């Protein structure tokens, strides 16, 4: 909750522009920019470079706006968790009201400008993404169900779909599979983090799977989602945006990811504690590379197609 009269922290100093920028979660924004750009570049319809730049910029601003609204609503738990205690609101640099104002203003601006820059479908998807992340995930699911990460992951999965919609004005099996790739990737990625950051979520009272169902159930879930993820990743290889680079990358990455998930599943909590959650940390690190390399491979195949080196599977 965000009752300002109860939770507001006195401002420590005059906020600078960079403090407001930090509200936009720049690191999350970089992932949004990258995946949206790939979604846009792999689409079969060319887009003017300036329109490409402005569209990705407004998608990023929309993502940032939802980050600011998330920090406004979650200010109380951000103060409790070590990982988030230095965010602008708990650090006393920016007030909750300012975060709310900035978030709402940038949400409206980004959606309106994306409609002008690209099309109404892309703008509508961006508006839905912001709504989904702020209302469905942050306000509703995050503190209510251990499946919070599963459903909330959808918000982070929309950018490539929006990028594709910017170029094509539509939705297709390719864009849905790019969405699915991030959507199914998110739970094992976060659950691996939750396994070795356990106390943080405990203290904040966020019902992470690790807290509500224990570590063994979380390990099973990680393995199940990783199997599902491999199926999704490989089916993307068979679509019009797949190619030899993607196929090889998907085979190697999924093999490694499955082995990691298998090892995590086989371990018990005492075993994990004995090596300071080494396997879980390795899996988490690999998950970052997993997503980055998948989208990089899609981009590489799009480049090969543009150069005429590879003409597609058909």
């Amino acid at each position, binding site marked *: 909750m965000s009752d300002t009269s109860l939770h507001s922290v006195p401002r420590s100093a*005059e*906020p*600078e*522009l960079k403090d407001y920028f930090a509200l936009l979660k720049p690191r999350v924004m970089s992932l949004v920019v990258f995946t949206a750009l790939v979604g846009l570049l792999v689409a079969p319809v060319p887009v*003017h470079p*300036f*329109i490409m730049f*402005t569209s990705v*910029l407004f998608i990023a601003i929309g993502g940032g706006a939802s980050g600011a609204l998330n920090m406004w609503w979650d200010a109380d738990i951000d103060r409790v968790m070590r990982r988030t205690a230095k965010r602008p609101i708990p650090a006393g640099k920016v007030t909750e009201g300012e975060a709310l104002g900035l978030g709402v203003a940038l949400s409206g601006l980004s959606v309106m400008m994306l409609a*002008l*820059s690209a099309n109404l479908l892309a703008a509508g998807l961006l508006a839905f993404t912001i709504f989904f992340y702020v209302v469905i995930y942050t306000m509703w699911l995050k503190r209510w169900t251990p499946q919070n990460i599963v459903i909330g992951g959808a918000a982070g999965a929309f950018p490539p779909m929006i990028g594709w919609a910017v170029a094509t004005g539509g939705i297709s099996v390719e864009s849905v599979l790019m969405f699915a790739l991030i959507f199914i990737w998110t739970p094992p990625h976060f659950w691996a983090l939750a396994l070795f950051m356990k106390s943080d979520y405990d203290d904040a009272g966020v019902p992470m799977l690790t807290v509500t169902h224990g570590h063994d159930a979380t390990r099973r879930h990680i393995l199940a989602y990783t199997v599902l993820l491999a199926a999704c990743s490989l089916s993307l290889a068979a679509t019009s945006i797949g190619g030899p680079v993607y196929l090889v990358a998907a085979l190697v990455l999924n093999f490694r990811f499955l082995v990691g998930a298998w090892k995590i599943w086989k371990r018990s909590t005492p075993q994990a504690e004995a090596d300071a959650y080494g396997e879980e940390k390795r899996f988490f690190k690999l998950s970052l590379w997993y997503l980055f390399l998948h989208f990089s491979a899609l981009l590489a195949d799009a480049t090969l197609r543009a150069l005429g080196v590879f003409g597609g599977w058909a």
Partner: protein
Amino acid sequence: MIRATHELHERRKGRNLGLGILLLAFVGIVFGMTIVKIGNGEDVLGTGMVSGEVSQ
């Protein structure tokens, strides 16, 4: 007493300057988008006409 430069102006100089630059960049983006869209022959004003057509 009225001072030309209030202490607040000094304190917020960096922030105001940054905001000014952002607003200028925004104007540039809108201008650039308009130029590109007109160049592509899009009906940016919603008049049903595209560049090259002359109203009667």
